[in-house]
């Protein structure tokens, strides 16, 4: 997949060392073996925190091997079984786990019921500090004006019936977070934009697969991106501060995006310089917007809103992915004292390098794979 050998990455500005952190805590990370979770656990380790990684029973063997500072508990958040016990000795919970696959009910069970069970267990276990990971998807993009600044005060979607399952379930999840905060707990809600990184460079904010080609929607919209390691650092900074009454972080909602956000074209060109990307067909945003709006009007007026079309033809979903808007991370930077360490170029190069390392590791490990595992 790598198109050009990644040059040695100058990471003098980005290299991080283990620190003797005065705010050391026992962090409990759900989704700790996932795309973001692995980086969050690694960042927690670098900053000297002990972590408890909650993994689902069938995932227990995945991810990094356990470290002395890292405990693993096998729980499925959809069940209350063992959750309270797993939180023993925990200072702060970082809740990353969510279900992004399957039908609405599967995602509701994994994301919403899972959160409900976790928060109930935290209450029973006396754990009151929560770093709640939400998403940029909760905002109301349909009614946003093109070019508008999306920040933490922007309205969330109050009529998400036509949004995708992920947005709908994350909106309900945020309500649970707010209920938990109203009950007297210390909660900060982080809303990351599109999190990119290894094996996730060519993503849904650029377009969609369309047969053998990739249909790109628009060229000039700013992408609300955050590189996975930048995002992980913001999450750990939030975890360190949420228990500090002087930080005034409890009750806050923070958007997590990187500095100097690229446009769709800028990002696509940079990614294409490093990896093979599929052949693309680009449709201008105004054209796609007009087509989807016409289809929605037809559906509402002639079909009583009962017809279901692919997501790109539903304005509520199209706007959430491709509408030209502006974004800011000012609040997160101020309250977390956070500066995204990786620039776009550094992040893409680091991702490509990580992908290459992952492939070589898998290749060298192949002789150890059993016959059964290959089937």
């Amino acid at each position, binding site marked *: 997949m790598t198109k050009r050998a990644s040059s040695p990455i100058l990471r003098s500005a980005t290299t991080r060392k283990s620190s003797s952190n005065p705010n050391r805590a026992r962090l409990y990370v759900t989704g700790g073996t996932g795309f973001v979770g692995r980086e969050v656990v690694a960042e927690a380790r670098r900053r000297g925190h002990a972590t408890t990684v909650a993994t*689902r*029973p*069938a*995932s227990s063997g995945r991810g990094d091997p356990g470290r002395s500072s890292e405990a693993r508990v096998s729980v*499925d958040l*959809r*069940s209350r079984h063992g959750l309270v016990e797993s939180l023993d000795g925990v200072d702060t919970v970082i809740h990353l786990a969510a279900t992004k*696959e*399957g*039908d*609405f*009910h*599967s995602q*509701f069970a994994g994301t*919403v*019921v899972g959160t*409900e069970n976790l928060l109930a267990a935290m209450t029973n276990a006396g754990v009151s500090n929560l770093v709640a990971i939400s998403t940029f998807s909760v905002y109301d993009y349909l009614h946003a004006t093109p070019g508008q600044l999306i920040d933490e005060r922007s309205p*969330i*979607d*109050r*009529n*998400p*019936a036509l949004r995708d399952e992920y947005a*709908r379930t994350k*909106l*309900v999840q945020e*309500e*649970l977070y707010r209920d938990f905060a109203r009950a007297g707990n210390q909660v900060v809600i982080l809303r990351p934009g599109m999190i990119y990184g290894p094996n996730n460079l060519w993503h849904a904010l650029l377009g969609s697969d369309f047969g053998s080609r990739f249909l790109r929607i628009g060229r000039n919209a700013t992408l609300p991106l955050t590189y996975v390691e930048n995002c992980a650092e913001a999450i750990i900074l939030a975890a360190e501060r949420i228990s500090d009454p002087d930080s005034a972080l409890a009750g806050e909602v923070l958007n997590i995006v990187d500095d100097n956000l690229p446009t769709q074209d800028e990002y696509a060109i940079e990614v294409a310089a490093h990896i093979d990307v599929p052949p693309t067909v680009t449709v201008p945003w105004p054209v796609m917007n007009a087509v989807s709006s016409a289809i929605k009007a037809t559906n509402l007026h002639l*079909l009583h809103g*009962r*017809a*279901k*079309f692919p997501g790109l033809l539903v304005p509520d979903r199209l706007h959430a992915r491709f509408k030209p808007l502006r974004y800011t991370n000012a609040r997160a930077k101020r309250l977390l004292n956070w500066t995204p360490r990786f620039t776009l170029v550094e992040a893409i190069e680091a991702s490509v390098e990580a992908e290459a390392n992952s492939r070589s590791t898998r290749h060298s490990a192949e002789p150890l794979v059993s016959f059964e595992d290959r089937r």
Partner: protein
Amino acid sequence: MSQSTITKPDRHDDIRDGTGDERSFTDDISLTLRAAVVGTGSISSEHLTFLSGRSRFVDATPGRVAPVAVCDLSPVSARYAAETFDVPNHYTDLERLLEFERPDVVHILTPPSTHVQLASLCLEAGAHVICEKPVAASIDELEALLDVADSCDRKITESHNYCFNPAITDISRLLDDGTLGQLREVEIRIVLPVTDTGGRFGDANLPHPIHSMPAGVIHDFTTHFASLLLHFTGHVRFHRAAAAWSNHSTNPLFRFDDLDALMIGEGPDGPIHGRFRFDAGAGPDTFTVRVYGSRGWAETDLFQPNTRVVIPRAGGSQLSPIANHVANGAELIRNGVANLGRKVMQRTPYEGLHLMLDETYRALATGDTLPVTNDDMRAVARLVDQLLEEKTRL
């Protein structure tokens, strides 16, 4: 569901606090049947769509049924379902629901292993019960439940939803009017990738409750198989049966993932053969029903309805095959277009469920016989038990 509605005050809390108007919902519609739903999994959307008058398969019949409450162990699930379908109350405790709401009908949509206990509770509280399949794990459990219903003078029925799909009704009509001749054989085939690890049955993290049933995951489909066969044959006793229950995937999560069953019974007009085939490894997803008569045969796919009828046609034996090709080709083209429309308009294979619920509520309102009777449920349970008996197994 709007974001604002999820935060609407829970009327149930008002009731518990003694500050709510606990009977106000029925004041103006006291002649309607008050319905409650227990369990908010995926099938609940179909039941609640019907109860809330939003079904696209049956005409809305305001005043005949009103959903009054939803119950689920998960508070947020109960609340979300209630808000989405404009149901006034939601609970996490069925006994409290029965006490405060006094529903006329309760839909039990929880995992099968809970059906008998929850149904008994509802019957004893004076509610009729509409239960998702399988209502019980065996004929003995079913008989005990029917005794409870009798002693409470309440009715209980099981979802035999596919028997009410228009495609099945069409084939029944071909049998009834003699087009297919005398019934000889019914073959039902379901192809579904239930062993996929990303699917709801293949999830090893939190195994689906259906795995605890005698036929494992296939128990989720045995009611469909048996009810459809018996729908065509009537309550024929199959005196010879053989069933190969297999786990071809060897996934230890699954008791069985494959069924090949053959049944032979004596119908009023001669022997009748039944064949069930469940295959988790083939593709694509299929639910075919093929009915052979002495004059011809008909088949349909309930997932992509297209009824093919092969019968003697004008032109005699020489031209009938060609006439069948032409007629079925035209039907295939017509259904290809229709199924595209069905997909866009979100018409799912659950249309039979809506039609069954509609008939059930009509019967409950008038005191008529329910469309799925106690004897229908007994015949299905007996046949499933028969296929699971050791002496039947291949």
